[in-house]
């Protein structure tokens, strides 16, 4: 269908964005005062290592040539070596993708499971005490700092259910899932409030809409009005909101991974910042940015699927 043709053409439009992302990550590290080779390799670098990096990244040449080398290396999949882990940055990041991806996915799933029923409950009781309760709770929830919620969950749940692990990541699937419970719940508690507010407002709006009135006027019972007309229309803006918040959500994983010592990209980033492992910082930022672009693309596809009027 021609409405989905953008799936083929849109990736071309990502190129300038990715290009810009590469410029920013490049500039970031070059802005650090001092000799870039030393900055990149750390204080204890050997003269040969420094010479190698100088050659690889053309550090003696003008800045735009340096960027050219940076890009050239990037296309070859080389982003330098981590000074703490002593291995190439990209393979290092690759090992950290899975926990982060699993965390994001389970957090979104959990948020939707929390948000949709509560939003529906509140909206259908618009103006009644349940609605006010949900509204106040969700307004509070927006202000929950994830790192603090994590600790409170540990305090409340891990004490009551000592089987729940409070740090690390497992090796088997079941073990991994158990390790994801508290981290994803932490993120879901704040993400779901954002979704809930938006979805509640949208449902209230659509329950009052002409579409709902027209359906009632042809004798449809409230359940059909809600499930077939109100909800499908109310979901579209929430998908959009989820996409807009995905950057914020991924930011949340950085903090939550640190709290729960979950070996994902966020934890890698924070540790790299402390150890001044700039190659890794650069690499993680780059990968995170590409992932965000990809997620937004997926959200676009979902929006087109949810609303036949949308053309991209």
């Amino acid at each position, binding site marked *: 269908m021609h409405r989905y043709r953008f799936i083929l053409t849109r990736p071309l439009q990502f190129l300038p964005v990715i290009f810009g992302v590469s410029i920013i990550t490049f500039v970031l590290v070059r802005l650090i005062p001092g000799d870039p080779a030393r900055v990149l390799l750390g204080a204890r670098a050997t003269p040969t290592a420094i010479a190698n990096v100088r050659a690889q990244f053309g550090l003696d040449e003008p800045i735009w040539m340096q960027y050219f080398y940076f890009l050239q290396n990037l296309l070859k999949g080389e982003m330098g070596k981590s000074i703490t882990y002593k291995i190439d940055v990209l393979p290092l990041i690759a090992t950290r993708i899975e926990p982060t991806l699993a965390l994001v996915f389970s957090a979104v799933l959990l948020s939707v499971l929390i948000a949709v029923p509560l939003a529906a409950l509140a909206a259908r009781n618009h103006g009644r005490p349940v609605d006010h309760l949900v509204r106040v709770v969700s307004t509070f929830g927006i202000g*929950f*700092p994830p790192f603090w919620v994590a600790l409170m969950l540990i*305090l409340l749940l891990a004490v009551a259910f000592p089987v729940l692990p409070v740090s690390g990541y497992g090796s088997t699937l079941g073990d991994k899932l158990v390790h994801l419970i508290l981290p994803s719940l932490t993120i879901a508690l704040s993400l779901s409030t954002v979704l809930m507010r938006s979805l509640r407002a949208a449902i209230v709006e659509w329950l009052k809409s002409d579409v709902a009135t027209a359906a009632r006027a042809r004798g449809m019972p409230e359940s059909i009005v809600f499930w077939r007309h109100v909800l499908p229309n109310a979901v579209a803006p929430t998908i959009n909101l989820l996409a807009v918040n995905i*950057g914020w959500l991924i*930011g949340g994983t950085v903090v939550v991974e640190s709290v729960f010592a979950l070996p994902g990209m966020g934890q890698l980033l924070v540790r790299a910042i402390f150890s001044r492992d700039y190659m890794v910082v650069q690499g993680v930022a780059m990968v995170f*940015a590409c992932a965000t672009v990809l997620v937004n693309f997926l959200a676009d596809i979902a929006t087109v699927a949810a609303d036949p009027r949308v053309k991209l």
Partner: protein
Amino acid sequence: MSAAALKSRPATLVTGLAILGAFVLVALLAPLIAPYDPIYQDAAARLQPPSFAHPFGTDNFGRDILSRVLYGARIDLQIALIGVAFPLVIGTVIGAFAGFFGGLIDTALMRLIDIILAFPFLVLMLSIIAILGPGLTSFYIAMALVGWVSYARLIRAQILVLKNSDYAMAAVSLGFSRLRILFRHLLPNAVAGSLVFSMSDAVLVLLSGAAISYLGLGVQPPMAEWGVMVAEGQSFVTQAWWITLFPGLSIVVLAFGFSMIGDALGELMGVNE
């Protein structure tokens, strides 16, 4: 419904303003009302649970949590205020000019915004702070570099809509100068949305500032800041919950105040539009 809305709107606004006002008062009066010096370490009073002498308990250095929470209000309010003010001003100016004049500069700015938004917010903030070195100043600089984007987009979108309004058209047809149209007719009507947004942005800024401090990249110990305090209490959370509970609650309540003000303003503006 409308009756309830009429009653609830001032209530929301009043609650929000009362919460914010209380925190401002606490921040201003911290030296007068705090029972102890926030960084004074009392080796004899370590990890004490809440009591009459220490209503919020003490931490592992024997510091009084209540005093630290009160002093923390100074830092965290400042984070929210400065962290919102710079992006708001920068973003409004950039967005207004880009939307009004359009053309090449507008296109270039929009591409730049797309690129900045491609980074997860906290990741870009952390990367910039990594370069500048940990500290509150780095946080503010990073905030100014990244945060203006949302305001610029918001104002630009508003200006684009208002530019096509009949009253803008009327102003053009009457030969008003472009600057008069922008500053007298469009901008005053465009800022409402971003003022509402600035309240929910204040929540995000507050949470980010606290998170970055929690990670050890923002406010540095021994300064009393709520994120730092939560980090300090982390190892003791199961034995001494009060060290983490109270600073975290302060963040939640202050954030709730901002959200309430934002909701009330949003409804007020929405009603008016």
